[in-house]
């Protein structure tokens, strides 16, 4: 509701961005506030920025229309954080998992803000079936994945995974880097 109102009053960008936080809005019960940004709890490090990949930009208009029509343009995504805690969110089709995480107060790093230059947005797709539904990573994504901590067979970069209907129900784990780094005796490659 909030979304359609915002987009109707002529803030297509704000509207599109707000859609991503709809789940969160429900959770904290601030739905209806025009400036729901104000009510966001303080995610720590990342709130100053919202990341718009080109792909997402180009779908903005289309998803703004369909958001009015119904729910099918949002998918359910579960993030499992470093402590194993689960967070269920709704993500509009076309949005990257990095953006979705940040709009929902989920601590996923993103040092290069989705420019494919840092590998800190590393997520592990917990189900191989879902992993197989994703397009193959590009060489460039693989190059950055090379440097990700705790890389697994189903690792991807959160800024490169874009919500699409087939991904409805996907579960993404944020690797517990500290454990890898310090406790397990795992010595990360220096690169």
């Amino acid at each position, binding site marked *: 509701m909030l979304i359609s109102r915002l987009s109707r009053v002529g803030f297509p*960008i704000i509207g599109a*961005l707000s859609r991503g936080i709809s789940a969160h809005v429900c959770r904290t019960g601030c739905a209806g506030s025009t400036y729901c*940004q*104000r009510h*966001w709890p*303080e*995610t*720590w*490090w*990342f*709130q*100053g*920025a*919202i*990341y*718009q990949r080109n792909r997402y930009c180009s779908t903005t208009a289309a998803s703004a229309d369909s958001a009015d029509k119904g729910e099918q343009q949002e998918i359910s995504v579960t993030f499992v954080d470093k402590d194993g805690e689960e967070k269920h969110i709704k993500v509009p089709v076309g949005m990257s998992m990095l953006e979705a995480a940040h709009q929902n107060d989920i601590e996923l*790093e993103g*040092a*290069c*803000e*989705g*420019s*494919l*230059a*840092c*590998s*800190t947005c590393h997520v592990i797709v917990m189900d191989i079936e879902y992993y197989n539904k994703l397009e193959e990573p590009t*060489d*460039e994504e*693989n*190059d*950055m994945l*090379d*440097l990700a*901590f705790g*890389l697994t067979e189903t690792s991807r970069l959160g800024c490169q995974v874009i919500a699409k209907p087939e991904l409805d129900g996907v579960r993404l784990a944020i690797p517990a*880097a*500290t454990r*890898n*780094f*310090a406790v397990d005796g795992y010595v*990360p*490659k*220096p*690169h």
Partner: protein
Amino acid sequence: MAIYRAVGRNWLTRGLLTISNNPLRVCIVDSGPAGFYTAEKMLKAHQEAEVDIIDWLPTPFGLVRSGVAPDHPETKIVINQFSRVAKHERCSFFGNVTLGSSVSLGELRELYNVVVLAYGAESDRFLGIPGEDLKGIYSAREFVWWYNGHPDFKNLNPDLKSTESAVIVGQGNVALDVARILLRPTAELATTDISKHALSGLEESSIRKVYLVGRRGPVQAAFTTRELREVLGIKNLNIGIQEADLYRAPADEEELKKNRIQKRVYELLSRAATSGSSELNPCQRELHFVFFSKPDRFLESDDSSGHVAGVHLEKTVLKGVSPGKQIAVDTGQFEDRPCGMVLKSIGYKSVPVDGLPFDHQKGVVPNIRGRVLGNTSGDPALCENGLYVCGWLKRGPTGIIATNLYCAEETVASISEDLEQGVLWSSSSSLKPGREGLHQLLSNRNVRFVTFNEWEKIDNEEKRRGSSSSEPREKLICWEELLKSAT
């Protein structure tokens, strides 16, 4: 691209509400990635922490500003995140303050409950071979600081005009960075934040051939795929790789099986070796990967100018020393590689400050998970109370920006444990003057420190100057100018 909104204020204002009467006083020495990640994690984990970051430059961000190549603007985006940390209500930046001269380590430990040293590695490893101090031989660090406009290296003026060939010793990512800067068309560099003096130097450069010399083989090269792919893709560049060097012994196969980066790097190199054209176009520049070779000594030119004229290289072979690890051993066979410039890119090295335990062999501060130890014995009983390390000073000079994030998590976890166990916080000494004390001390010594607000003035001035020539910024490279713009 990124769209910003002003919600950063949310977590900034939170700081106001939570500063306690008796804050945990924290000082972090360095504003590079290790320093900023530590600050961020300390502020987040400890609502009572007040964090001061000092840096000897008036400009923050360490190697993100002075190391990361000018043609990698996307890597520098992390500066946005660091700036948000610096602007946190409980965080202060003190630029132009040098640990060791403006303030001593002992003084900082008196002023603060927690001191985290993360001042990186600002010296070089040496080869220790004859001729290393000939003219025309530089460390990659100096060359990088020159093209990135570090105020202390603006006058390096490497002579790029009197030779066609340069040798780079080492095959890590820094070596690829400097090779790329030497070989990339300067028109592509002109729209970056490369320093003006470096751009003009490179525009006049006569260097057409660069030899990247590594003591081991293509399987063991230290660079990573992204950087290799980029250099291989430079316009009008011929790549030279000896096919014989691509031979894989069983031990190499073993290494490749276990390491994804090595495997992908090796594949890229193999592809480049076979796709290169056999006829060299004389207009094109050349990058030669020279494997299994190590410098034995540098050759001096005949004109007694004291200038380098080449490198006497010894061929090497690999010898397995433990599973998955092969080292280079000498063969007694030599060859000369004529060149008029050498860049040594064999790694950076940290330098100790007075009163800091230091492992001179490894070039790091002895520590257990970031807790500084009194000596190199590794005995946890010898932890220095309230003193921690992070980043290159803690681990040695390897790792990308993100590595420092995990490194900072580890150090901050140690600090948190020590706080919980009352090691840092229980005694009467927990009341420390912190920021006020530092202010006092710096003002008594007439040290003119640069705040983050003042850095933003420098930042704006650099951006203003850059905008006329479509560059993201034109870096200020004189100390006087930097300090003037800060006021």
